[in-house]
């Protein structure tokens, strides 16, 4: 049975992927964040209705870690963009300073 949550999850996934393919820093980071949320929804779904709370505990930390990863990516993007404006991520070939 396809319910609302499933449809939303699928939308989260495909839009997240779409954004990751957009080759712009901020969009890519947003895409990763949205993709993460889609994955979280799937994990929560795997818990099922009978109240298995273990996935919830795992998700709780996953959400916070997701924030940390997003922040780290933002910082990296911030530093790279501060040095030289790098519009297209495909032009970013060497990770040197």
């Amino acid at each position, binding site marked *: *049975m*396809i*319910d*609302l*949550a*499933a*449809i*939303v*999850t*699928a*939308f*989260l996934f*495909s*839009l997240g*992927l*779409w954004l*990751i*393919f957009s*080759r*712009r*820093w*901020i969009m890519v980071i*947003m895409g990763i*964040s*949205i993709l993460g*949320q*889609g994955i*979280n929804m*799937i994990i*929560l*779904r*795997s818990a099922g209705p009978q*109240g*298995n*709370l*273990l996935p*919830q*505990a795992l*998700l*709780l*930390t996953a*959400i*916070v*870690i997701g*924030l*940390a*990863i997003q*922040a*780290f990516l*933002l*910082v990296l*993007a*911030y*530093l790279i963009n*501060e040095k030289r*404006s790098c*519009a*297209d*991520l*495909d032009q970013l070939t060497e990770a040197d300073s």
Partner: protein
Amino acid sequence: MFFWVGLFYFFAIFSSLFTRLPAKVWRILFVLPYLFAFAESLNPFLEKNFNFPRDGLSDFFACLVTGIGICVSLYAGCYFSKNDSKKFFPLLFFFTGSMLGILWVDHVFAFFTFWEATSLCSFMLIAFNYKSEEVRKKAKQALIVNIACGLALLLGLLILSEQAGSYSLTQILNLKNLSEGHSTLLILLFAFAAMTKSAQFPFHFWLPNAMQAPTPASCYLHSATMVKLGVFLIARFSPLFEGLSLWTTLLTIVGAITLILGLLVSLVKTDLKQLFAWTTVSSLGGMFILVGLPFEYSWKAFFSYIFAHSCYKASLFLCVGNIDKQIGTRNIYDMTHLTRRMPLTSFALVLSLGSMIGLPFSLGFLGKEYLLKSALLLKGASSLLLIVLVCSSALSIVVTFRILKLIFRKESRPSRVNCEAPWQMWLPALILASVGWVSSFFLKELNEYFLNPVVSSIVLKKVDMELQMWTGLNAAIGLSLASLILGFILIRTVGRHLTRVEMWLRFDQNIKARLDIPLGLAQWTTRFFQNGRLSHYLFYIVIPTLLTALFFFADLKFIGTFDFKLGAGSPGQILAALFTLSGLVGIRVGKTDLAKVLALGLVGYGVGLFFLAAQATDLAMTQISVETMSLLLFLLCLKTLKSADVHITVLYQTLRTVVCGAAFVGVLWLCVFIEKDRVPSTAGEFFNEHAATLGQGLNTVNVILVDFRALDTMGESLVLALVALGTSFLFRPRKTKEHLLKKSALVQAATPYLLGIFSLVCLYLLFRGHNSPGGGFIAGVVGAVSFSFYVLVFGESSLHKWIRFHPRQWIAGGLILCLLSGFFGTVLRNEPPFTSYWIHDSLPGVGTPLLFDLGVFLVVIGVGLSLSLQLSGRSRA
């Protein structure tokens, strides 16, 4: 064993501190651990008593490692400048510790870990002069080969320990009746691991390239010790595969090819170090032949061959280092009249070369003779092997002759001054060279104390054999003479044309590059697939994943059994879906980045509402507060990350649409699939049942986090702390600049009250967490958000009124609290870490889990605060 590994690791960590002492002191200090370890590994031989799990084979290798280590550490102290020493010695000690670890541990995983550690050391030493791109490339090559070897080894060890039902190496080695199917796979795995580590054809290429490492490292790792690990591995596991024809054939053929190939290449090398690198490859091939031959007799040859090779090759490399250092070149044509310029080094060089070609009365002679004798024992294919062996010793004579001719050649100009290296540099070379000669005069002792224990430990039964210098005229001597004659014929005929070959090799690089089809193909493939475009890489990842999914989709015939009815949602779900979908639409159609980021916030809150609708209150709280924090961070970066739109081709756009559409369908299918065939979980029930009794909390999620799985949570806090630390290091050199929100009387008046209220809220959330939704993570994020908002309004300096410490101190304090609560029981009552303790009577709900939660809270708040402070450009740096 742990003491010795620990000792070397201790030196690895603190050696750069020791170099602050006067040069004379630390140079001696760095030799000392090797001296002690050498004594330790020599001792069992003299007492004829080996402590488990050490045995003859491992202690023999340990003797080589530490003995050559003495010479190398003495040498390196003088070879390197002080700054280079600071870089070199930690790696050297780390390497030695890991080598001893490999040799002396019994546990399979420890063995593997140390094995990988040596690969890592080798990588770092090759990349010693990492500023050159050439060097980095070669180091990477060596690393990749060695890691591949490590993976094969791991797989082999896992299969073996599964078979033996034990992780002890000793028990694995005593494994009987290995099944046919397993043994073939295992032989391939172990042979692959050994061939890559010991640079056998066709994986030999990394070793000559590894000569980018500084000479003491090349000497120690890439000729004397580490590359012999492959042979050690084969010898160690040989009882399992003894007598299997695949084992014998594979090792012998690979060894024979490498033996000849290495020498042939070394003939045309003019760089002395490269030349010796290729002869090392060739000698390793010789060892492979020996370990492959299925006779107890060949282990005798193995022992003498390895001993001889370690001594003379280490000495040769040290001599190369001396020449390089003193004359400034490694080209053999610049070494004319070396006997006059560097007499002691040349003496060591000549001695070692003598041992290399196996002159009588040297250890090399023994190695060569017994190699020939073992080959003679082989029936059937022995004649081919004998031809290879004879040719190889003839070739080694040619190589040696080339070098000797040059270093003895008188110069037409008046000879230059004596420029002998300091004693710390020639002495080790000379010692190692003379060991290869002197020890052959103590054959009786060598047989009794060393040979028999070593061979017994390899074949796992008591043996009694002896090495003899002269066994009368026999076939082996005849073959040696034949190779000598062949060598001289080669010198007379081919020798003088070698220079021409060299010239051709050097000048025709361009033509060769054009003719090289595999190289061109490889370059084309690399350009096509690794074109540096991240989006292409993404396609390479996503498309195969989707194809795999499609395969399952088609194969498992799920489509027919699914009901694709639309289910109605509860009102909560409908609201959440509205939030999320409108957010997604907003991201898709939004014109500005700001609008998109705000829409992202909408998506996040929508997901939070979904969590709420699924009765996961903790998750909803976390998600909503985290989303707020993430919005804040995005907004702070928005200005810097502004960029023009990217030009996107139609093809790219189409491909992207197809991929995203496929992902949509795939995830929808996955969701339905998960709903239908759920894997039953037993862990969940356990937690539900015992949360109230064992964990003393009604909120199972929180109890899992701070009690049942506290170790995981500890790890996660550590990750958070690392992120904060990483960003603060990245931002360290930056200037701080203050930019506040626009002044607004209402906001300014309200913020302090809000902060007060929020502080109380997050404390409340923290303390109720164990029994009702809440807890350290949620409280921490809420706290971080409120503090960050306060900073945006009033600036960083005003925050000190509220929080006394720097965010980093909050993080550190939090981690310490977590650790304290975790190890409370360990220290006090000797129980496993992270066992919980409660104060039952007077204060309900107070115990180590609460302390742990408090620690998590502090970490999260510190991380959130430090991130937002840094991104708002106001870090104190």
